[in-house]
């Protein structure tokens, strides 16, 4: 199992378990697409299209994958189902590769700037706060000192929610209460980190729909304010996407990126949905790497996204 070198057995199991829904349906669908077929004909491609679209890969990416397969089938004189699986796996893997959704293999690197500032953004209800809690936990486990910034001062009880998580993860939190200026909270958090020898700063922000211009501008402001203390901050702008979101995920990625230069993605709730496909579609259409995936409600249920492992998991048992 050379491919899984960077996963401990335990994590690997968890990924499989977490993605089991995705895998079963994805596999099931692809299995159905090619069952009893000895060659790739229009029927097979139609069924394949269905398998991909219903996994939320998105029409555009689906068509691209089908096209690639078509041209390869024409060239390689395709034979059987095993072959198709192999080709499909390669194509999906290469889509992810083009996007550079790999590379990182541990939560904390020794060459991370200090403090390393992460600003977490996303629409309402995607799981930002939970992701932050999980991140805090992971970084702490990796021996880093973490502080949380409660800059979601808008949604009722958001600060309270983050406080509870901070307690559970046993990390400090900077908060100015509900209704406070989010930029001030972010500023204070970074300042706190500087003064207290903190390694990782994670700033929560209020959920906002990406078509609300004012709220999107607010994000730029939060970012600017942190710049004042650390010119490179935030080092990571993490967009959290709900894995069960459909095609709107693309629009979210686009709008948030143009407002705040998102440079990492977290895809959450992949344990409950058949739609791991969104990872593929997003990777195809955006240059932003998928960095984390959420696969459960426990504080440990956050994984670094590993392209190889992900594809392997999708296609295992085929």
């Amino acid at each position, binding site marked *: 199992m050379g491919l899984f070198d960077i996963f401990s057995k335990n994590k690997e199991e968890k990924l499989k378990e977490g993605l089991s829904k995705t895998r079963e349906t994805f596999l099931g669908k692809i299995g159905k697409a090619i069952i009893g077929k000895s060659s790739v004909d229009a029927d097979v491609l139609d069924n394949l299209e269905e398998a991909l679209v219903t996994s*939320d890969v998105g029409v555009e990416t689906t068509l691209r994958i089908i096209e690639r397969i078509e041209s390869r089938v024409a060239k390689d004189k395709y034979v059987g189902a095993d072959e198709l699986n192999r080709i499909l796996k390669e194509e999906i893997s290469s889509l992810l590769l083009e996007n550079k959704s790999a590379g990182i293999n541990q939560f904390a690197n020794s060459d991370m700037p200090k403090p390393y500032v992460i600003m977490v953004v996303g629409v309402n209800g995607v799981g930002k706060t939970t992701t932050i809690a999980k991140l805090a936990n992971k970084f702490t486990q990796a021996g880093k000192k973490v502080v949380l910034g409660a800059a979601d001062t808008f949604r009722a*009880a958001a600060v309270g929610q983050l406080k509870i998580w901070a307690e559970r993860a046993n990390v400090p939190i900077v908060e100015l209460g509900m209704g406070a200026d989010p930029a001030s909270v972010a500023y204070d958090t970074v300042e706190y980190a500087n003064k207290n020898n903190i390694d990782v700063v994670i700033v929560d922000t209020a959920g906002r*729909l990406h*078509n609300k211009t004012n709220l999107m501008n607010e994000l730029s402001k939060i970012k600017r304010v942190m710049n004042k203390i650390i010119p490179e901050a935030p080092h990571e702008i993490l967009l959290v996407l*709900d894995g069960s979101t459909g095609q709107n*995920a693309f629009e979210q990625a686009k709008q948030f990126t143009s407002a705040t230069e998102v440079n990492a993605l977290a895809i959450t709730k992949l344990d409950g949905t*058949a739609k791991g496909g969104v990872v593929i579609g997003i990777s195809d259409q955006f240059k932003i790497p998928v960095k984390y995936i959420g696969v459960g409600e426990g504080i440990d249920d956050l994984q670094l996204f590993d392209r190889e492992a992900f594809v392997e998991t999708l296609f295992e048992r085929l």
Partner: protein
Amino acid sequence: MFESLTEKFDRAFKLLKGQGHITEINVAETLKDIRRALLDADVSYKIAKTFTETIKEKALGRNVLTAVSPGQLMVKIVHEELSLLMGSENTEINLKGSPAIILIAGLQGSGKTTFSAKLANYLKSKKGKKVLLTACDVYRPAAIEQLKVLGEQIKVEVFSEIDSKEPVSIAKKAVIHAKNMGHQVVIIDTAGRLAIDAQMMDEISNLKKALNPQEILFVVDAMTGQDAVNTANAFNERLDYDGVVLTKLDGDTRGGAALTIRAVVDKPIKFVGVGEKMEAIDLFHPQRMADRILGMGDIVSLVEKAQEQFDEVEARKLQQKIAKNQFGFDDFLAQLQQIKKMGNVKDLVSMIPGMGKAIKDMDIEDDAFKGIEAIIYSMTPHERKNPTILNGNRRKRIAEGSGTSIQEVNKLVKQFEDTRKMMKMMSGGEGKMKNIMRAMSGMKR
């Protein structure tokens, strides 16, 4: 990302000029486009497929009227079918029972707590009910606190038991409390749960058994993708819910999940959430949803609204003015007034095909025109007719008179000039304006 379907259709039919009716061959490309549009809107794959089949059957052999392009006719057929599928007008919620119990269920992050509070607010202010909110999400940190804060905002009592981890017992106590205190409606907010989480699904069905609620509402994020079909089904199997709530519709999602859910569980969508404010709750309008899914710009409603409001004679006069470059601020004002009469400005503008995208990033408030009107009212009649004479002094006076700033006046004048240029361009020859006009007259019923 999405061009207007009508445009697509028209392009698909371009080759068929002169053909009087829709045939199997000339419809194939269009059907593909429809299917793609539906999939792009997150309509379930299977439903998109059956839907296009239906459209094909309905469209074949239909005669294309001279006034309508085949593309427009196709849009009309699709629109009719979609509306049919979306269900008839609104279905009220059941408030019989003393108290009436409403159970809220859904996935994590779908917006249950916010909706619970909005519904309480709605029932209190619109229906005059005394409502009790009940916090049964005992898992998510601060979920109870969240409901309490919202309850305070809308002045509705919230029942909770901070130390209890037993939703069923909390809910039962809440109902007793409601009976004692004379609450007419009890809304039970529950934890988010995955349809595949057997334990949590047991919990919610136990809640149902224990409470026997008048109304179970399934809350679903309008942005949900292909999984909507599974989730909606799974919850329905366990709960046999009475209605669906579609949240976060103020985003730019097309909301195909709505169609999917309607088609697979045949339960009415009763409410939609359209913002974070407590008042941002709306009854569901099937028509509007159909339009939105198609992303075609709400041509049909626009036509209807325009017909109601649009005086043809006036229109012709206006066109002449535009052509002669005599379009002044008075005309501009008159246009604004007409638009305002038609309703919500952003909705309206987004109905114009191609405009939806352009204005997506703008925050258009309903009183967006207030400042503009004030500025124009502060101009002299002469200035209104001859905008070119607006020099610095005049602008300064106008700004003071209208209580705005000179920058705002400048901005308006600039916008006006741009509009004038654009209108002139459009009114000439094969411009878009003409197409829009033609579309309007062609679709009279």
